[in-house]
């Protein structure tokens, strides 16, 4: 059982605060990703957990025991480094055996020459070799045991690094961007292997990455970091569907969420001239002021384009006018760039599946206005500072037409 708790961790290098009062709890067997742009402090946080950096303040507990002052080797952790940090002068077997030699042999049995005199050296050797071979078999690298790291491919080195971490039977597995040095294809493969490793070992994993796709696909929970703080921590779907801030919404999801400026006036949300069929939850605080309106590219529906396929009709929703500018063919999907009526300065991205009619010279290639529909449940509302404003869809009937809707603006707002 390995539960990891951080409480109020602060760390500065010189005058730069890298970690600002970080607290988080990781349960036994969880796979938690620390994700964020470079410089957000995620790697430093991992190194604090590993014991490679000492926090200026705050507490690290593993299974309830405070480990702030414990050396890395006493924390029951293993770590995979970004560039693997394999010892170039040692064979794969020696690399993987290092943690065991350190744990099982006394100092004098580890020194050159002197070790041949130490009985522990001869006694422990077979056991170490057996354990290394065992892990190597699991990772399918037995045939590489005699090679040096320089003779291995990137994927093989990655596996050796995993092996060196696994061999010591750690409680917590720390990984610092382990896939960033692999090519795209291999990355997908190793990603699955790490997930399988997590599932089969039942260990607690803490995984640092700048790639939100990695974080989303592998983790049970994701902690999104920015500027030394955790912006939001939760299950991948929570971060995607229910982000706390506009920064979280922007970081998670690809292509990036569409954000348009809007205003809030006495509980009525406008985006440009359009009144949105949503209302901020009661007691939300803010009643008036500038807001930001977010809709993910896959939630903007070009239902009337025959080349695009939608599993079901969008149903009741907001209808807007969209003018296509460019199309990116992503294979099974397309990404359509264009502008919404009334927002000429904002690039809007729409992502959709292709239908069978795609590529037959249909109307998508013509420059014309399309109707785009949005389910109000998919609209994310943020205040000017980027904090989420909880909002609920408002049905047309409940929504007594406010005074603002009169005067010719009605045509833009079409609730189906």
């Amino acid at each position, binding site marked *: 059982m390995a539960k990891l708790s951080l409480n109020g961790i*602060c760390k*500065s290098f*010189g005058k730069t*605060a890298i970690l*600002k*009062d*970080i*607290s*988080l*709890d990781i349960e036994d067997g969880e796979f938690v990703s620390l994700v964020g742009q470079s410089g957000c402090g995620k790697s430093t946080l991992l190194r604090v957990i590993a014991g490679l950096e000492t926090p*200026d303040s705050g507490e690290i507990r593993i299974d309830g025991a405070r480990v702030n002052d414990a050396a890395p080797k006493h924390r029951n952790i293993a770590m995979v480094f970004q560039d693997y940090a394999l010892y170039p002068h040692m064979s794969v077997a020696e690399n993987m055996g290092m943690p065991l030699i350190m744990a099982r042999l006394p100092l004098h049995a580890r020194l050159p020459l002197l070790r041949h005199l130490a009985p522990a050296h001869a006694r422990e050797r077979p056991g170490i070799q057996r354990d290394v071979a065992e892990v190597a078999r699991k990772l399918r690298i037995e045939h590489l045991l005699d090679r040096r790291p320089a003779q291995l491919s990137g994927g093989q080195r990655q596996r050796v690094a995993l092996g060196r971490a696994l061999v010591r039977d750690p409680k917590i597995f720390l990984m610092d961007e382990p896939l960033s040095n692999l090519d795209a294809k291999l990355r997908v493969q190793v990603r699955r292997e790490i997930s399988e490793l997590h599932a089969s070992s039942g260990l607690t994993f803490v995984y640092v990455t700048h790639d939100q796709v990695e974080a989303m696909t592998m983790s049970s*929970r994701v902690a999104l970091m920015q500027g*030394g*703080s*955790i*912006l*939001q*921590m*939760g299950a991948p779907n929570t971060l995607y569907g229910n982000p*706390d801030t506009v920064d979280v919404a922007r970081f998670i999801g690809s292509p990036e969420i569409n954000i348009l400026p809007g205003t809030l006036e006495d509980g009525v949300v406008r985006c440009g001239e359009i009144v949105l069929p949503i209302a901020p939850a009661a007691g939300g605080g803010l009643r008036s002021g500038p807001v930001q309106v977010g809709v993910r590219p896959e939630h903007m529906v070009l239902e009337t384009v025959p080349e695009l396929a939608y599993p079901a009709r969008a149903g009741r929703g907001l209808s807007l006018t969209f003018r296509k500018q460019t199309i990116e063919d992503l294979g099974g999907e397309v990404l359509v760039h264009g502008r919404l009526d009334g927002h000429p300065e904002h690039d809007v991205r729409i992502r959709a599946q292709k239908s069978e009619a795609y590529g037959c010279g249909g109307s998508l290639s013509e420059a014309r206005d399309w109707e785009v529909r949005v389910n109000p449940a998919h609209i994310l509302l943020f205040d000017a500072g980027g904090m989420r404003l909880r909002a609920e869809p408002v049905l047309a009937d409940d929504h007594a037409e406010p005074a603002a809707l009169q005067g010719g603006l009605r045509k833009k707002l079409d609730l189906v």
Partner: protein
Amino acid sequence: MTPLLQDGPSRPSRFDLPALWRAVRPRSPSAVIVTALLLLGAWIMVFPFIWMVSSSLKPTSEVFAPVFTIIPKTFAGLGNYYSVLFDQPYPRFLLNSLIVCVGILVVQLVTAIPAAYALAKLKFRGSTILFGTVVASLTIPINVTSIPIYIGIVKVGLLDTHVAMMFPFFISVFAIFLFRQFFRTFPDSIIQAARIDGFSEMEIVLRLILPSAVPAIAAFSVFSFVAHWNDLYWPLIVVQSQDKMTATLSMMQYQQEFYTDYGKTFASATVVTAPMVIAFLLARRHFIRGITMTGVKG
């Protein structure tokens, strides 16, 4: 798990004494001891210089006083240095050293850079043999070739001249080797682009390659200058008159006079050592890089 939203960080204030202490505190008692030992060692390394300068300011009687003091009891510095710089031809010695070092360096650069460029970037028959000869010559020190070169100099009647003092060093195979390695890293695509743009080969060397080689040239210049300023062996062989003596060679004359006028002896030692030491202190990085450059060759 509820998301944790932190407001402002609890940054230590500017005058947070504990944080300041954390930044400068020694990590452990053993670290303090090691630092102290290193500083003691540094004192031993520097002590000969301190002793030399201090003695150069003392009258002869005080140099070997039973108790050494850094500050002279009787200040005789003015007299010592006056005598070194005006009674003895020290300005002449220093000038000789300067002429020899500059002359060697200029010829070395002028001969080595074009050859290195040709070896690095141009195809010509014999380049392999030439480069092989350069590498083989790297191992041959002046001590091995000094006899025939000396005989040759005697035969052409150039003994005891500046040219004789410089001649064996007019070519630096090390410079050719170093610059060739440096030029090889210069991208071919830029040279080809320059040819297409209408640069002549000479212009390519002068306007593209040379400016890019400035760091290597600077490092080599330091290396060459220091080596020849400090050289004792070759001047000892070819210099006969006081008129051609280099600063370093002038130290030989104190073998005889060593026990007569200590103050002046160490004043002249200071004058001879000072140029390189001062230059080193002014351009520490360049010096360390230039002198240890042999360590990165190959």
